[in-house]
């Protein structure tokens, strides 16, 4: 998936978001090895130090872990991945509802509109 970094939030946070999406979407499977910092940095077009920082921060969540000499791996803990999925879904839904409310729709109207959209 292309990296499409935007301009206003810190780059390392966007990198973490991107990796989370790649895990939830199944681009990376549980237990997969991540490319090296350098490869990921070149792919994303970011500074390797920034990539390093993002990966170190990301490790704190337990979704990836590093093995001293062999690199970084995606967790095999399905529960963690499910939790991540739930939290990403919640964020998306919350954001969608907030945006729709800004446009002046009530929750029921929004639900109705979503249903019409999927029925099409």
């Amino acid at each position, binding site marked *: 998936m292309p990296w499409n970094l935007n*301009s206003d939030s810190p780059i390392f946070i966007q990198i973490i978001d991107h990796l989370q999406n790649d895990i939830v979407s199944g681009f990376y499977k549980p237990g997969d090895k991540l490319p090296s910092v350098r490869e990921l940095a*070149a792919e994303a077009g*970011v*500074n390797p130090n920034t990539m390093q920082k993002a990966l170190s921060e990301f490790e704190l969540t337990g979704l990836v872990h590093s093995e001293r000499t062999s690199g970084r791996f995606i967790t095999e803990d399905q529960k963690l991945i499910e939790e991540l999925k739930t939290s990403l879904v919640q964020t998306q839904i919350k954001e969608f509802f907030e945006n729709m409310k800004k446009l002046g729709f009530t929750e029921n109207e929004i639900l109705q509109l979503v249903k019409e959209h999927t029925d099409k």
Partner: protein
Amino acid sequence: MSNLLEIQGLFKNYDNIQALNNVNLSISPGHITGLLGPNGSGKTTLIKIICGLLRPSSGTVLVDGNPIGPKSKALISYLPDKTYLSNNMTILSVIEMFKDFYDDFDDNRAYEMLNSLNIDPRRKLKTLSKGNKEKVQLILVMSRRAKLYILDEPIAGVDPAARDYILRTIISNYDPSASIIISTHLIADIEPVLDEVIFLQNGYIRLYQPVDDIRANTGKSVDEFFREVYRC
């Protein structure tokens, strides 16, 4: 000596004009630093002093612990803002010249990059477009295994696709013990590859901060922040 570049109390006057005003700077190895500022803020003066092409009025500059001199110059790979190569030379002969001049020049790297950018090394420099000439010079500079790369406006005339390639080449090739200083006005393009940025204004350092700190503190990209700080 842990810092690759250490500048203390640097002043430079041209007659009555103060070009640099008490510049202090420490850059550690493995960093890519953007040197930003409006026209006439002192960027090129600072770069030329680090490269030993101008003498400071006062202050000290150390490159990997060495004062400015032959030792410091051997550690620095410098891309000037103007071309200095003879237009009648072919790329091949320029590469031979660089091999003679610099012990740390890696010609395989140069040929590899020329190939990726579809530039025929048999061509004479004068037959190249402005952008391709710039690419050749940047390739020469980045093909050295230097400690400190100083690039003065490296991508101004280069098309966006080649810019991406060049930036990717820079980040995937440079040695983690080396550092790069890039002076440019094309902030948005190079912003993701920078560790930190220096904002110069009227010869002094207005700000010296990591890119992600600026984004986190201001909610803006460095490019937008620059436009705000230097609004005319």
